[in-house]
């Protein structure tokens, strides 16, 4: 009985989404820019590499990996309105899910997980991230607003300190991954293949988030961001939907962590320090939360700024911080907002 009105109203909510899509269709410039951007993202490093310059391939591989993390964060931040300040923990969990099995397969011990099989690594990264997201999400999502920000931050820091204190896996000094994940058909030791794998993953991530956001599930998530009570009155339990979104986001970010472990071949707790989570947040906001591809723009700008500024001065954090404050004070909706892409956060 209670299902019927809920579904009917959901359809009318979807109607308004269709309207929004029409609105987005008018900005096909932004959509075309996204496509051009994605092509450039693939073309520049590959061409540079083929011309003998390995530097750009390195930067762009890191860029695609961090983009996946930022895209995953955007799913709950931009569309769900949940400010998670602990997403770097997922990156770390994913990377350790590669590092620890490889460590054991080389040094022995803990036979149950000792493996260099990449599919096992990915499964482990996804499983651990999902379990962690489920437990911390179940607790964090009971709270609102600032509490949520601080609690996700605290849980992230909990994982950080746990990694610091486990001396078997290097503790504070980190752990070198002596062998990359072995996958069928491709070798991640080849930088071009690694980039292709990461790039393909990014495209898949963008597609998945795009589909989720425009699904019935996504409509509920976005509706709960706008007005949780109304969504509740429609018969939806916002808590469950949010928890599932949080788990999906965490799993995607954990997967990005597994890629990051394979890319850096060195993992340390420093990669999940809370300031890393802050950088991920910044990437999402910089690119405009609310646009599916926004975080890719944000991550690109972030990494290129970092690369350029750190070449001029070791004190590049200073202009960077001022830029960040300036962005918040004077630009709303991020860079995508400047491009005229409709940002989801303006719907209130």
């Amino acid at each position, binding site marked *: 009985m209670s299902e019927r009105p809920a579904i009917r109203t959901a359809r009318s909510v979807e109607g308004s989404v269709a309207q929004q899509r029409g609105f987005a269709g008018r900005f096909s410039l932004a959509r075309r820019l996204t496509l051009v951007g994605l092509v450039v993202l693939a073309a520049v490093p590959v061409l540079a590499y083929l011309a003998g310059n390995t530097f750009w391939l390195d930067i762009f591989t890191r860029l695609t990996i961090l983009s996946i993390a930022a895209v995953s964060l955007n799913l709950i931040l931009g569309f769900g309105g949940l400010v998670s300040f602990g997403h770097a923990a997922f990156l770390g969990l994913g990377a350790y899910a590669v590092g620890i099995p490889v460590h054991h397969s080389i040094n022995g011990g803990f036979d149950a997980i000792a493996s260099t099989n990449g599919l096992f690594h990915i499964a482990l990264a996804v499983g651990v991230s999902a379990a962690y997201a489920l437990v911390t999400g179940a607790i964090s999502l009971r709270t609102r607003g600032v509490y949520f920000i601080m609690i996700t931050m605290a849980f992230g820091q909990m994982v950080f300190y*746990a990694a610091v204190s486990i001396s078997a896996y290097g503790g504070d000094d980190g752990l070198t991954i002596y062998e990359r994940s072995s996958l069928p058909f491709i070798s991640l030791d080849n930088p071009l293949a690694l980039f292709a794998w990461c790039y393909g993953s990014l495209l898949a991530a963008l597609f998945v988030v795009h589909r989720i956001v425009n699904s019935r599930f996504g409509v509920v998530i976005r509706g709960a961001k706008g007005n949780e009570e109304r969504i509740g009155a429609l018969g939806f339990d916002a808590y469950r939907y949010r928890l599932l979104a949080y788990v999906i986001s965490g799993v995607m970010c954990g997967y990005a962590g597994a890629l990051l472990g394979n890319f850096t071949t060195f993992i340390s707790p420093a990669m999940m320090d809370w300031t890393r989570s802050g950088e991920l947040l910044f990437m999402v906001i910089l690119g405009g939360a609310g646009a599916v591809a926004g975080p890719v723009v944000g991550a690109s700008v972030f990494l290129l700024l970092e690369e350029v500024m750190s070449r001029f001065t070791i004190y590049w954090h200073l202009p960077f911080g001022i830029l960040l404050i300036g962005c918040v004070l004077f630009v709303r909706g991020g860079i995508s907002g400047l491009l005229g892409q409709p940002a989801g956060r303006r719907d209130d």
Partner: protein
Amino acid sequence: MDVGLFVVQFLNGLQLGILLFLLASGLTLTFGIMDFVNLAHGSFYMVGAFICASLTLATGSFIWGVVLAIPLITAVGFVTEWLVIRHLYRRDHLDHVLATFGLILVFDTSVQLIWGPAGIALPLPAWLNGQVTFPGGIVFPTFRLLIIATGLIIAAGLYILVNHTRLGMLIRAGASNRTMVGALGVDIKTLFSAVFALGAALAGIAGMLISPITEASIGMGNEIIITAFVVIIIGGIGSMKGAFLAALLVGLIDTLGRAFLDDLFKFVMTTNAAETAAPAVSAMLIYIMMAAILAVRPQGLFPPKVR
């Protein structure tokens, strides 16, 4: 378990709790009254320590260093509020978080520009550098006792300020309904500036007090600020009493956990397993406690009455 060792660790935990309270009280004040989330609060802790270090080396006296550094760190807080913070009060929490994250970068790099990348160790005067012997042969550093005493005095001062002065009355009124306070003709802008500067000063004092033990170093605030967040989450954001009790609780649990958890674990598992598990679990102990408390009381132990 050795009683003497327990007492020493208990006092260490108390000292950590006091430091956390000095940080958390400023956080909880700014949140309670301005509804403002300040990630950069730890930066005042760091900047306070560095200013105090410079002044101590210049004057040759730690006491003078602290006395002269307090007005300076208050001024830093005041200027920060004036330049950045006051433009953010009407924004949402996400903007607060991003802008103050930018502030952290600015503060960290500025400190590196001014004082260089290395930390500064602070010499203590001889009369503070010794140890006190309690009855029963328990020995404890004088300076850590001084931190505890100073913190308790400041806590008492804050209690009087909040509950028995005009400023405190405005602070309590602002915490329950800031619009109404403004409507009654109180100069909200000045009140906010004063409260923010007070919070900065308290954080700075905490940094000054700890720097002779740990030395003043870049990023020192970024580590402890998360623990301070845990404190105000447990205590209930906006509650002074909650911040005080939760700070002591977190300080004690953290210190005692690190000291004695492996002994407890040895009752239920092999020595080897206990020595591996205990450091990891004790590092997570306060977060587990936070999760447990939130599972029962999502708003913390002392949620503000009107929100």
